[in-house]
């Protein structure tokens, strides 16, 4: 670790926290239907959308209606994404001539985008046409994010309602979130990214000559497409001269902006934000990093403002920040220490003025270890899933940090909207146990937490272990699961564990060595993502519905304060203990044992 790396982390967090209040306030005003300047210009258009769609914007929905609307919209979204992939070969805007995506991969990708996961079993520049990227992926990047935020708004309204039945109107929340929050921010970010060198074009891939002509070898294939082997059983290789290279291009900036802002993470290119055309400079990297946590962080303030007590929002933001920071430090320090196996070869991994040093495998020179570690932890804290370094090549403890963030159920910032409503589940559990400890039926924001709320909260915190652990167990016993593992030993186990935790959490990042594009992983992963999204979404809505009907108990000295330091510490303890107790055995067999083997 060096001073400059620490400084970058501090500056990042400081800028992020400075933006929380203005953006949070703005979002609260958007969702409350207050005047936010652009709605003056776009207001008529907003009302036109409601008229076309047959929506009465003043009609409140019960939690059940709200949930049904969310599910119907998501289902249709999934179907559209699936159809576009399967039909892309015959549709326009396909300059690279991509063929139809296979059914299982199309299913996985459709689920991946409708659930705001953006797990990439596809390789952007090698699988999808420009049209699919734009109509299916970019659109879903917007609306699946807006769905998460809308559900959060419904949940917040449930907390603050006084003996009410309704939680707002899903269609209104969806339209406002997309038009007034995600679109304007994306336009600003996309233009800024283009200025840094992110490509934005609908022209064909560009072929350029290489400066030094080289050759490479590929297996010689027979007429049937099988690799030919020589007498001794070695494959026969063809040598091919390389004099030019084709650079994949496309309308990347517009998609990258929203994939960062909407905690989507699905890259335009396979290498995601490590790709130089997706994230060309240190400054573009800073902007993209900022975009990962920007909305989830600001939503804390939005929440506080909407329930009329901003201290509640700040308390949660502090909890998130305090949970995030140690893992950034852990990852940065582990990556800085580098790989002892390379040191043994005579490799210089020390940090100095002229090199970042540390474990540079799977990292870009312009980012170095500090920015890569920072990104790895923030992208897994938020359920973003974009990467600017290959997580599979992280050191064991460097990889433990993102795995740990995943095991905290994506409530440390988390996905836009879903992170915060997931956090409420932990708040409810923390309030419940603490409430008992002070001898009162627990209450949060003046609403009593009773058995119905506990039932729903328990359903929520079950889903991550249920999906992640069971799917991992299945994959490591079945041959089809084991066959995709890339790295040997405990690291291979981490690959599988990471994959299913990431999908159950709707994160989307991966230990990329795992060959995920198989029928087994595509289907199982798709199911895990579906449950991870909607099983996490319905119970909080149900809680909101139940909370909305309750009377508000006025606070007194006997009320457990949920905004002071003590509660912050308690909430952190609950989150860490539940996460650690659930995943410690698995993590012990993955990164922990790998680390101990490495330092031996």
């Amino acid at each position, binding site marked *: 670790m060096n001073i400059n790396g620490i400084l970058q982390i501090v500056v990042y967090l400081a800028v992020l926290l400075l933006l929380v209040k203005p953006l949070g306030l703005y979002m609260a005003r958007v969702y409350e239907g207050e005047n936010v300047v652009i709605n003056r210009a776009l207001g008529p258009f907003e009302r036109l959308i409601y008229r076309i769609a047959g929506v009465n914007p003043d009609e409140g929905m019960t939690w059940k209606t709200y949930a049904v609307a969310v599910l119907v919209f998501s289902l249709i979204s999934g179907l559209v994404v699936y159809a576009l992939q399967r039909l892309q070969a015959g549709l326009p805007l396909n300059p690279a001539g991509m063929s139809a995506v296979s059914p299982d991969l199309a299913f996985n990708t459709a689920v991946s985008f409708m659930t705001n996961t953006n797990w990439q079993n596809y390789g952007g520049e090698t699988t999808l046409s420009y049209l699919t990227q734009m109509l299916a992926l970019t659109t879903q990047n917007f609306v699946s994010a807006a769905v998460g935020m809308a559900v959060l708004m419904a949940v917040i309204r449930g907390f603050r309602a006084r003996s009410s039945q309704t939680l707002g109107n899903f269609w209104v929340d*969806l339209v406002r979130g997309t038009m007034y929050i995600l679109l304007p921010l994306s336009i600003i970010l996309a233009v800024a990214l*283009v200025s840094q*060198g992110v490509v934005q074009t609908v022209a064909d891939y560009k072929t350029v*000559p290489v400066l030094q002509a080289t050759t490479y070898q590929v297996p010689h294939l027979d007429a049937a497409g099988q690799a030919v082997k020589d007498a001794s059983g070695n494959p026969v290789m063809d040598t091919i001269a390389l004099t030019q290279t084709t*650079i994949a291009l496309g309308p990347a900036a517009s998609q990258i902006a929203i994939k960062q802002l909407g905690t989507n993470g699905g890259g335009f290119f396979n*290498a995601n934000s490590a790709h130089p055309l997706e994230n060309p400079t240190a400054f573009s990297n800073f902007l993209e990093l900022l975009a990962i946590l920007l909305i989830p962080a600001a939503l804390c303030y939005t929440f506080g403002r909407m329930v009329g007590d901003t201290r509640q929002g700040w308390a949660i933001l502090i909890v998130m920040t305090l949970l995030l920071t140690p893992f950034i430090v852990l990852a940065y320090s582990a990556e800085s220490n580098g790989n002892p196996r390379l040191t043994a070869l005579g490799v210089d991994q020390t940090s100095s003025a002229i090199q970042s040093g540390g474990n540079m495998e799977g990292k870009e*020179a312009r980012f170095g270890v500090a920015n890569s570690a920072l990104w790895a932890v923030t992208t897994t804290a938020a359920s973003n899933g974009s990467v600017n370094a290959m997580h599979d090549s992280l050191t064991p403890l460097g990889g433990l940090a993102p795995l740990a963030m995943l095991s905290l159920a994506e409530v440390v910032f988390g996905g836009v909207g879903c992170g915060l409503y997931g956090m409420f589940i932990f708040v409810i559990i923390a309030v419940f146990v603490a409430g008992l400890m002070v001898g009162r039926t627990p209450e949060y924001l003046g609403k009593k937490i009773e058995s119905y709320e506990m039932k729903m909260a328990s359903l929520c915190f079950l889903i991550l272990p249920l999906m992640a652990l069971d799917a991992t167990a299945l994959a490591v016993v079945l041959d089809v699961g084991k066959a995709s593992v890339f790295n040997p030993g405990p690291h291979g186990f981490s690959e599988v564990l990471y994959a299913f935790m990431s999908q159950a959490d709707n994160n989307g990042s991966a230990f990329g*060595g795992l060959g995920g594009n198989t029928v087994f992983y595509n289907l199982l992963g798709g199911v895990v993502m579906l449950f991870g999204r909607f099983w996490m979404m319905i119970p909080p809505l149900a809680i909101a519905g139940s909370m909305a009907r309750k009377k508000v108990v006025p606070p007194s000295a006997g009320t457990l304060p949920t905004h002071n330091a003590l509660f912050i510490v308690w909430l952190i303890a609950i989150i860490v203990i539940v996460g650690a107790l659930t995943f410690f055995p698995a993590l012990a067999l993955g990164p922990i044992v790998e680390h101990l083997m490495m330092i031996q």
Partner: protein
Amino acid sequence: MLKQLRPALLILAIFTVITGVLYPAVITGIAQVFFPYQANGSIILKNGQPAGSALIGQSFDDPKYFWGRLSATAPFAYNASASAGSNLGPLNGVLTQTAQARIDALRAADPGNTALVPVDLVTASASGLDPQISPAAAEYQAARVAKARGLDIAAVRQLVAQNTTGRTLGMLGEPVVNVLQLNLALDDRQLK
């Protein structure tokens, strides 16, 4: 359920047009008007002809060129239409073998050099297309390149410095040397 079907279909359709077509189109328009160089891949022109991208690395193994990061793209290194990292775990034997092979190649091209090898020269980048290396990695190779080209090492170092980008605002990111641009500059200098 059915009552929500119409808004679901229509709102998705409307947003597909707005966010899926209009939004990228507007960004493309702005990009092509205000940032045509960046928006089209930062293509370097040499005598009016494209000579690679300033942002996409290329494979070098000739001693007279600076070498870049290792690349794990398939089927050949620095395949700019199939970005990928190696995904090798830290204890994977292939990682050390690959690193050892690079070290051997570097040593073979520059027998007298006994310095420790900067880590970015023996590791694969995340994208497989990393256009840059650390100043340390450039310095490690400067003597070799100078010798192969019969140049004064100071001249080579000067070119390295010219193609080095410092930290943004003195703080963000890491200082880096653009390998392709540096090698183009070296060739240019020799032609003169």
